[in-house]
Structures are given as C-alpha cells and as structure tokens.
C-alpha cells in the first residue's frame, strides 16, 4: 500500500458572493469575482491531513483541474498540510465545458499513475451542485465508494464509514482502495496559518495536461441557457380548506 491519498480541490466562486447571470444568458459572471476553494473540498483536505497526522497514511496529494488560477486553490491545500500538488491544466472553452465525467476520468487516470490508496473529494461543488464526480470516479476505477461521509476511520486495509442519508445515519465498511466524499459534518477545516503558508511555498505543484493522461475532455453536454430563478410571486390567503382545494385545482396543481 502506497499510503498515498489524492484529494480533489475545486476552485469555485466564493460562497458569499452574490451570483449574477451574464446578459447573454450563457453562464454566470466570473470575471473579477472572488473565488475560493469549494467548502466541501476544504473538508476533504482537512480529513486527509488529519489521517496523515495520525500516521495512517503517508502522503497527501492535492489535485485541481482548471486554468492557471487553480494553482491558488492547490496552494491553499498545501498551506493546510497537503504534501504536493498536481495541476491538470484545462482552460478556455474546455474549462467552461468541464464537468464531473471528464474530471472523474482525469482522477481515475491520476489514481492509477500515483498508485493512490484513497481518493477524498467533497460531496459536491457549490457552483454546479452535481454530486457526481466521486461516484463516477469510483465506478471508472471499479473501487468501493463511501459518499456523504460524516465519520471516517481506517481499520487495517478496510475503512469504517458513517454516511448521512435521508433516513438517518448508515454505517458501512468498505475495502481499500476506495473513493470517499466528504459531507458537512465530517470535520471543521483548519485555517491556513501564516507559518504553513510560508512552508507551502516550498512544496511542489506539477502541471499536466488531460491529453498526457489519455483523457479526452470533450463534453457530452451543451449548456443551452442560464437564467435567474423566477421572481418569487406573492402568495394568497384562503379562508377554508374547500377554498384551498378550489384554488389548487384552478392553478392546475391538483
């Protein structure tokens, strides 16, 4: 076992920013807008670093797919305690069309190349809310998956996981190598302290292209239109339940 963990980190628009749709409805405004690491990716990095601190794994490799600026996101992961980074350079139109399928192909290729024992991802990204990359990556590698993890513990070559599901909490045990996706309550990510930011400067980030990994990033999806959600309409009050049923029938809801 290599003891190596790959952590995927995605550069997204900061959660506090007010999103604006572009006037041509092709997407949202990203120019000059504050970006940061996806919050669920932060949780994944924290978990990986914790495992390393407990000496259960040996190396944490942070991976990000995107343009040059994705390196900032990798640097943040390094400042949190990752050992080195891999920047998969995807820019321009390819980047605009980059989605979970292509990213999972890239991660699968990297996992084989780096002989990873574990892949840790955030459960979803806050920009597209896809919640697919972890699951697809596991399928491509034919590895077990533990998604929506709120507790992770390594036991020999197996992993005990607690998953947050609709009905409550599910306890499972999976083999390694495996893919885990982090949910909100898994941990509280640490701040990048100033000394760690300094140390991160010395850590290496390697750059590769998807083609180097034998991955074709052509998208199978085409975005037709992006628009704001409809304005919230005023509600109306009714006096009785009968009135309610009548109104619902009128609106075609029943």
């Amino acid at each position: 076992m290599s003891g190596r963990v790959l952590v995927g980190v995605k550069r997204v628009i900061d959660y506090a920013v007010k999103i604006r749709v572009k006037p041509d409805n092709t997407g949202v405004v990203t120019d000059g807008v504050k970006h940061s690491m996806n919050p669920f990716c932060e949780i994944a990095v924290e978990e990986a670093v914790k495992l390393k601190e407990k000496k259960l794994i040996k190396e944490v490799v942070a991976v990000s797919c995107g343009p040059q600026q994705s390196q900032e996101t990798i640097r943040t992961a390094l400042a949190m305690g990752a050992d080195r980074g891999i920047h998969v350079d995807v820019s321009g139109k390819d980047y605009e069309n980059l989605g979970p399928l292509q990213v999972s192909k890239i991660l699968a290729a990297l996992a084989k190349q780096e002989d990873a024992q574990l892949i840790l991802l955030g459960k979803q990204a806050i920009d597209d809310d896809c919640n697919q990359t972890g699951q697809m990556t596991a399928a491509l590698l034919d590895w077990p998956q533990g998604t929506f993890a709120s507790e992770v513990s390594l036991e020999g070559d197996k992993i005990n996981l607690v998953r947050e599901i609709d009905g409550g909490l599910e306890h499972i045990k999976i083999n390694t190598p495996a893919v885990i996706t982090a949910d909100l309550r898994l941990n509280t990510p640490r701040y990048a302290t100033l000394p760690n930011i300094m140390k991160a400067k010395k850590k290496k980030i390697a750059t590769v292209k998807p083609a180097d990994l034998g991955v074709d990033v052509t998208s199978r999806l085409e975005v037709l239109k992006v628009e704001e959600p409809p304005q919230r309409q005023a509600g109306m009050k009714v006096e009785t339940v009968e009135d309610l049923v009548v109104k619902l029938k009128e609106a075609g809801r029943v």
Partner: protein
Amino acid sequence: YIFLLLFVFQSFKQLSRPWGACQAGWRSTSSRSVPDVASHHPAEVVSSFPPLQTYTEEEGMMREAVKKYAQERIAPLVSQMDENSQMDKEVIKSLFEQGLMGIEIDPEYGGTGSSFFTSILVIEELAKVDPSVAVLCDIQNTLINTLFVKLGTPAQKEKYLNRLSTDMIGSFCLSEAESGSDAFALKTRAEKHKDYYVINGSKMWISNAEHAGVFLVMANVDLSAGYRGITCFIVDRDTEGLEIGKKENKLGLRASSTCPLNFDNVKVPEKNILGEIGHGYKYAIGMLNEGRIGIAAQMLGLAQGCFDHTVPYTRQRVQFGKRIFDFQGMQHQIAHVATQIEAARLLTYNAARLKEAGRTFIKEACMAKYFSAEVATLTTSKCIEWMGGVGFTKDYPIEKYYRDCKIGTIYEGTTNIQLSTMAKFIDKEYNV
C-alpha cells in the same frame, strides 16, 4: 542632535503604546521575490513598475488567511471585549496559533519567517475588524520581536524568541507619569551591584501589561549622564518587586490593556541587559520609525473597516423614495473619504516598501502615520453621520471605530511631532 531628540518628544503624550527600539534604517532580513501582478487578473501585462497594490503570492495568501480568521474568530467577540475592556484569552491564543505574533521571526525560533510588508498587511486586516487586536499584534511584531532579533545575544534569543512566537506577549516600558514626550527625562533608575542591577521607579501607559510575560524596561543606570545612561533591561513577569497596576479605563482601544507598573527593588542580572549600556536612547529613536508604519497600517485598516460597514447601509437605507447613497451630497462626501483612504493606503504601502528596500523612509513613515491617523478621524466621524441615528448606538460597530481612532493622532508621535519631524527633513533637502 540632543535638541532634535527633545523636540521630537516635546508634545508626545504616550497613552497606550510603549516604546520599543530598533536601529534606524534596519533592513528587513527576509527575502522577497519581485511582486507579481495580483493573481486574479492574469491577463494584465506584468510591468517593471507595478502599482503599489501589488502583492507577492505569499503576501496575498497571508492577507486572505488573516481576513478569514479575523472575520470568523475575532469579529464575534469585538463588542464584548470593548464593553468589558478585556481581550479574550481565546483571541490571544489563536493569534499565536495562526503565527501572527512572530511574523518576521525565523522559523528556527518558531516564527513565521515572513517579511515586514506582510506584518503591515496583517495589521491592516486585523484593524479592519478590531484595532485593539491589531495594536497587540503590532507591538509584538514591530517593537518587541524586532528588539530581540536585532539586539539579543544568542542566549537571550534562545530564551525568548521561541516564547515570543508561540505563547508569550511582551511589553515595552518607557513612559512615566512625569515623562511622556520628554521620554529621556525618565526617572526609573537601575543601580549596579556586582553582577546585577536593582531597579526602582514606576512606569505608566504600558500596553499589553495585563498579559505580558516579559517586560523590556528602560531605566537609567547613571542619572548624572542624562539620556546617555538609559539602558534596556529584560524583566520577567514573575520577578520579585515588579507590580502591575490596575488597567486604565479608556475611551477607545479598550480591549488593549494599558497599566501602570511599579518597580520596588527589582533585581535584574547583568545578562538581562538588551543591547549596550547607555544606548537605550538610540534604540528608542530607531524604534519609532518602523513602529510608525505599523500604526499607519492600523489606522488605515480602522478607516477601511468602518467605511466597509457604512457604505452598504447607505445603499440600503431609503428616504424620500431613493437610497441615501443616491443623493449627490452624500455621493460627494463618500467619494471624498474614499479618496483619502486610498491616499493613506498608498503612503503606508510605499513607506513599508521603502523600508524593505533599505532606502531612507523616515519622512515617508511620518507622512504615512500622520495622514492615516487624520484620515481615520475624518472617516469615522463621517461614517457616524451617514449612518444617522443608528451610527450613534452601540448596536452598530461604527461608534467603536470613532472612539478607537482618536489615539492614532496621539500615540507613537503626535500629529504635531510628525509634522515637525517632516519639516526638519524638508529643510535639509533644500540645503544643497
């Protein structure tokens, strides 16, 4: 020379800033790469004369990290710390954990190993949230740490630098009840006995004293020699005879403790002298310069933080059918204040960069401190007006900034002193 010193300290009223010392024009010892263009505009051409608001990747990351930390860990406690005139212990602990208390100290001693400009950015970001926390960080970094790094013997560095980076706060003790601006008239004396000194006297207006573990005390070993007898002593908190008095009840910067100290036959070994005997006055002058830029950064952050809380309100508040921001009278005032803040920022950053480049920076540092303090006063006063009635209540953070800003024109060299110092430089410039 003596006249210059006396004149410089004439109307200086030291309130909560202790004097530190560092040789004038000390170079920053850390290396720094050529500033990159701010990385969120990659399309811009990298010029060989980048704008002042250009940061290295390291500086940018530091600033973001401190901003986030300050918002999440300090902001919720600001009001309560001000009300109780008490710095929260968790805040102090987390400042150390984040590496903010040893920014320029070498990692060999547990420090962050970063640059002076990074300290300036950190102080600015902290001041946006709480100027009291900023001043604690500023004193530690620009006064205490600098003194130990520049003047400490290997043994002293070994004993103190590690603690200063990780868990111990320092205080600098120069001012006394009878000597504020006229600092060199200090009366605290140190009598030599064999291999130790006995210190007697008292100090006033000493910042951080409530929590400090080590005190750098300026005492005179030979009062007949005047200021040439002033010497810097390292005194540990638990030394017998050192009494820390009750902290002052202040208008602003209330969470920063300011206490009187009493020295009653305090025995200090000879090896606890920092630097050379009788050179304390030199250290005091030198310290002014670097610390001045730190205060400029604090006032700058204060002004910006106050402004950032106010403008959103003016965009929200509607009167007479439109946002109060849309009234031309308001727009002109707001734009004027924004310009002043920008000018203060450029003065401060430039003074910091000049110092790092090893060039003369004293006049520019004076300008930065004087101007930033004045801008902070203007900004906070205007912000309260723009907020209207709510600006006057403690439910909103504006009135605190207003109270906190006043010390800026007073400590670390009053506005009048800064102006006189600048005039001296200007006079010399036309000597040729």
